[in-house]
């Protein structure tokens, strides 16, 4: 049965936030993520006659992840150097905490870049989008046992690698006035 416009828009409302969070951890550019979400939904809309409503969410995730893969390939072809996470500014956030957030994102990007594509998708879909094992089975088209074991392994690895980074949540990385203090010390010497 074909997908109606109302069903697609309902899916957009439902998946907008989790999908954005998944895509952001691939592309690290807010505008690219927005564009890609639009492309993914329009791509699904173009194939609405042959799609089933029951598989809609899985199809949208799979389609968006494929588009993200193509976008990254395109970037690799046309840009030189690495993309640095474009940390979105939050209202009322101090420059110090923004810098800390940026640094965390860079560290996270390095860790995630060390994962293969499927493992990274598995981490992002389960942790950012909150997909259950059944939903992950629908996206990856793997047996449930495979999804569960791979998820377990990959999360354990993520835990270890993030733990090794040793970021302390309570302590800001760049403390206000630290540079000024150093400068004063340098002037005194």
């Amino acid at each position, binding site marked *: 049965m074909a997908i109606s416009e109302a069903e697609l828009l309902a899916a957009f409302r439902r998946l907008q936030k989790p999908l954005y969070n998944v895509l952001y951890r691939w592309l690290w550019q807010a505008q690219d*993520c927005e564009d890609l*979400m639009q492309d993914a939904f*329009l791509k699904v809309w173009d194939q609405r006659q042959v799609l089933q409503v029951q598989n809609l969410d899985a199809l949208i995730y799979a389609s968006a992840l494929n588009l993200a893969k193509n976008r990254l390939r395109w970037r690799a072809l046309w840009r030189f150097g690495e993309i640095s996470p474009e940390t979105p500014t939050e209202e009322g956030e101090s420059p110090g905490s923004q810098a800390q957030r940026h640094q965390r994102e860079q560290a996270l990007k390095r860790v995630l870049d060390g994962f293969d594509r499927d493992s990274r998708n598995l981490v992002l879909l389960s942790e950012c989008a909150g997909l259950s094992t059944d939903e992950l089975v629908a996206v990856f088209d793997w047996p449930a046992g495979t999804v569960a074991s791979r998820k377990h392994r990959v999360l354990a690895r993520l835990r270890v690698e993030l733990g090794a980074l040793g970021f302390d949540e309570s302590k800001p990385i760049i403390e206000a006035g630290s540079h000024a203090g150093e400068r004063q010390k340098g002037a005194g010497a």
Partner: protein
Amino acid sequence: MSEFESWLPALEPSAASYARLTEALARRNRRRTRMGRGLRLAGLCAGLAFASVISLMLLRQPDPTREQQAAISASLELAFAGPHIDLVVSNGDAIAVPVNAPNVRFYWVAVATGEIANHNSSSPSPSR
């Protein structure tokens, strides 16, 4: 709640995304309607052209000159295809064209008209 929430905090997408998608869908639907209208128009034009060709073929009057030309061509082709005997052309006139080469006779063969008939005093019989 994810154990990695501090590493993967939930980010908020732009509030305008939904409106952007609805607009894109509406634009796509409009384009499809326009395309459907264009296709219908093209189909109508093609149908009209086809009908005109058919009616022209049916309504065309038989042209005696063209028919005679076709008969002459057919006779000539038949004569050249067969063994080398005297050429017989019916339904036409022939004018002897002077040629310098010996043992070569050259005739202008065409549909019988008054003009050719006037020049035809020395030519072989039209039926031969």
